């Protein structure tokens, strides 16, 4: 194998694949990047066996072939190279030389046959979805996944595909984010539970305007654009029935200025307990009052004007859950609905002119007296 590539193209390819290389592994070849020649250049591939990324970059190929190269060292070398064309050649199935200007490197790799095969996913009947739409869902929902190991199913994002819409839902059991977009021409109906790490790569790697092909293998999901593909393991199991916990009868409605609300909650959270982040919200006609009281620390109060419709209510929340959700509200005003101090509250954008729909749920914290 022998090819010449610009330093920039090499760096571009490596930065796409680098994130899928595990930092620690018991299988030595996983610390390597698979480099193979193609018709138009070279393909770089990396995997940690949960997620696999491959991308093609332009290069002048002199003689075809493939080899795996230690990823960390190759990335470090590429970063330090002078701005000259890079000549890469392999001899035998383990030795690599890399030349750039007057710099010359010899590296020891591993045979390409040792590199694990990518999951078998057939793209024949692939779904076609615009990358930007997927990114919008991912960036509004993925934050809400659970990081606890006790319920693995909640460590994934539920992605519901229907003929006319797609929806993503994530929750840690205490708060939930849900976003939905109308799509047309979608395939059949599928529910997939995708690890957020893979979604983060999707968001990062594909330009917004690109159309992606998406196909499901036995237990894997593949995403493909003309140059880049990402495969991920799917999380198995039934996702909890989240529809059931979305309140339909919340009769107290509050419209608040998002910036005012956010800054008041931030002020309260300074005094809130590091453990629970508990703050108290008291909704009254025209006014939302905040109070926090933490033993051994102190207390604080605040208030902001709001539009509120319903009987007054005192309710406790984890301040960081509220702040997290408010970050993703795309409008200047936010709508909160409530029912009772121990029932879920909803948070939505107010007067959002967008075909998408976003909804977050936050379960309260019990107030202690």
């Amino acid at each position, binding site marked *: 194998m022998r090819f010449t590539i610009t330093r920039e193209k090499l760096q571009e390819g490596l930065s796409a694949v680098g994130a899928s290389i595990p930092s620690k592994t018991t299988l030595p070849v996983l610390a390597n990047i698979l480099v193979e020649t193609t018709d138009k250049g070279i393909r770089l591939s990396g995997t940690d066996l949960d997620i696999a990324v491959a991308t093609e970059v332009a290069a002048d190929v002199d003689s075809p072939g493939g080899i795996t190269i230690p990823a960390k060292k190759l990335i470090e070398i590429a970063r330090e190279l002078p701005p000259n064309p890079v000549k890469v050649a392999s001899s035998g199935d383990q030795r690599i030389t890399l030349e750039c200007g007057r710099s010359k490197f010899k590296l020891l790799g591993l045979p390409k046959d040792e590199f694990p095969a990518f999951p078998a996913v057939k793209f024949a009947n692939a779904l076609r979805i615009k990358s930007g739409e997927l990114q919008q869902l991912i960036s509004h929902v993925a934050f809400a996944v659970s990081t*606890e*190991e*006790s*319920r693995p199913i*909640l460590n994934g994002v539920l992605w519901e595909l229907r003929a006319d819409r797609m929806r993503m839902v994530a*929750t840690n*059991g*205490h*708060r*939930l984010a849900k976003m939905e977009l109308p799509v047309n021409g979608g395939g059949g109906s599928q529910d997939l539970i995708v690890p957020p790490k893979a979604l983060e790569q999707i968001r990062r790697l594909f330009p917004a305007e690109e159309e992606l092909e998406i196909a499901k293998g036995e237990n894997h999901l593949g995403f493909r654009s003309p140059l880049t593909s990402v495969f991920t393991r799917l999380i198995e199991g039934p996702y*909890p*029935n*989240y529809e059931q*916990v979305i309140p339909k009868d919340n009769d107290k409605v509050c419209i608040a200025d998002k910036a005012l609300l956010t800054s008041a909650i931030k002020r309260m959270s300074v005094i809130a*307990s590091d*453990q*629970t982040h*508990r703050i108290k919200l008291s909704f009254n006609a025209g006014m939302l009052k905040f109070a926090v009281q933490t033993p051994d620390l102190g207390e604080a109060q605040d208030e902001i004007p709001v539009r509120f419709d319903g009987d007054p209510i005192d309710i*406790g929340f*984890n301040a960081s859950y509220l702040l997290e959700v408010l970050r993703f509200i795309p409008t200047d005003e936010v709508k909160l609905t409530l029912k009772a101090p*121990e029932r*879920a509250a909803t948070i939505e954008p107010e007067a959002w002119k967008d075909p998408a729909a976003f909804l977050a*749920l936050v*379960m*309260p*914290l*019990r*107030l*202690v007296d």
Partner: protein
Amino acid sequence: MSDPRRILLADADAFFVAVARLVDPEAAAATRLIVGGRPGSRGVVCSASYETRQFGVRSGMPIARALRLCPDATCVPVPRDACAERSRAIRDVLGRWAPVVRAASIDEWYLDLSGTESLYREPLAETARKIRDAVLEETGLSVSFGGGTNSLIAKLAVEHAKPKPGTGKTGVHVVEPGLELAFMERVALAEIPGIGPTFQRKLADRGLVGAADVWRHDLATLSRWFGERAARWLHDRARGIHDAPVAPREAAKSIGHEDTFPEDLADDAALEVELRRLVERTAASLRADGLVARTVTVKCKDFDFELRTARRTVRTGLESDRAIADVAIALLGRLRAARRVPVRLLGVSLSGLAEGRTGGQLALFAEAQPAEREKDRAVSRAMDAVRTRLGSTAITRGRPVRRGSA
């Protein structure tokens, strides 16, 4: 300059031995007494009477070895409940004399009597003697006092106070303010808390054995040898300088219990029973302190002394036996899956401690309710209440009894 601080360290004399003698007739009759476990058991010496220590018996030594050194010693198990109860009783007496009392262990307490000069109007040593008499009268236990202007001096001084037979010591040794250096001159570096065997060797390599040996070198030399932080620390400690206050309550970082089995256990079910017992004891200590724990660690020493641990952190603090046992048993399963060999010792420790039930976060999904329900907490508290009144064996869960007694 403000008045020098008045710090005492109260150290109960041969505490476990003394308590065993109060509650165990067999122990009461024995002069040469080892508390820790029965002969033939694989426990370690928890405490030994002064008469046995003359034979070289030390705390932490396996019972079998202690018996080789002192074959006619009487061995009794640790009277755990009685020890906890007497420890509290001593603490209560101390608390009546000193504004600040901090327990350093089950049988050691630091007392800060600063500011009581005009209250007691007598030398610190005199006050210490009165407290010593009061403790003896009310609890039947003898406590030695070391005293000085800081907790380091008090800790070192108590070793000069212990009324070991034949030494003529009276149980109180107070280093008067200004006499710290004269006192430190007699102290070996090995006696200073924080200087362990490794550091001792490094010090000895430089010819430093007594505290006074350190005085001959300036800070720069010490820094070159041991690094800046260790040098500063050593420079001060060797001169008896230690500014840390006696905090009224130093929060525990973890609470744990462990057991060495009489013989190695290979059976998973038997190990689970032992683990549940350990969890019950540990969780009871946790609740007694009004704490909840987020991290559960299970420790397992295999027959070949290989020590392995597994830990898990959950979202909300736990306090009930059942919820903690669930996590601990899963962790034990993980350890056993990795290496299924006979086990010599199991331990459980709880960390990530927080005060009280700070939780209260409600859950969206019924099945996502926290690992612990109010019912679990109520059951545990009810069991605690029964045990407080009737003793630790008065009530236990069904499962360990059924399997354990089989």
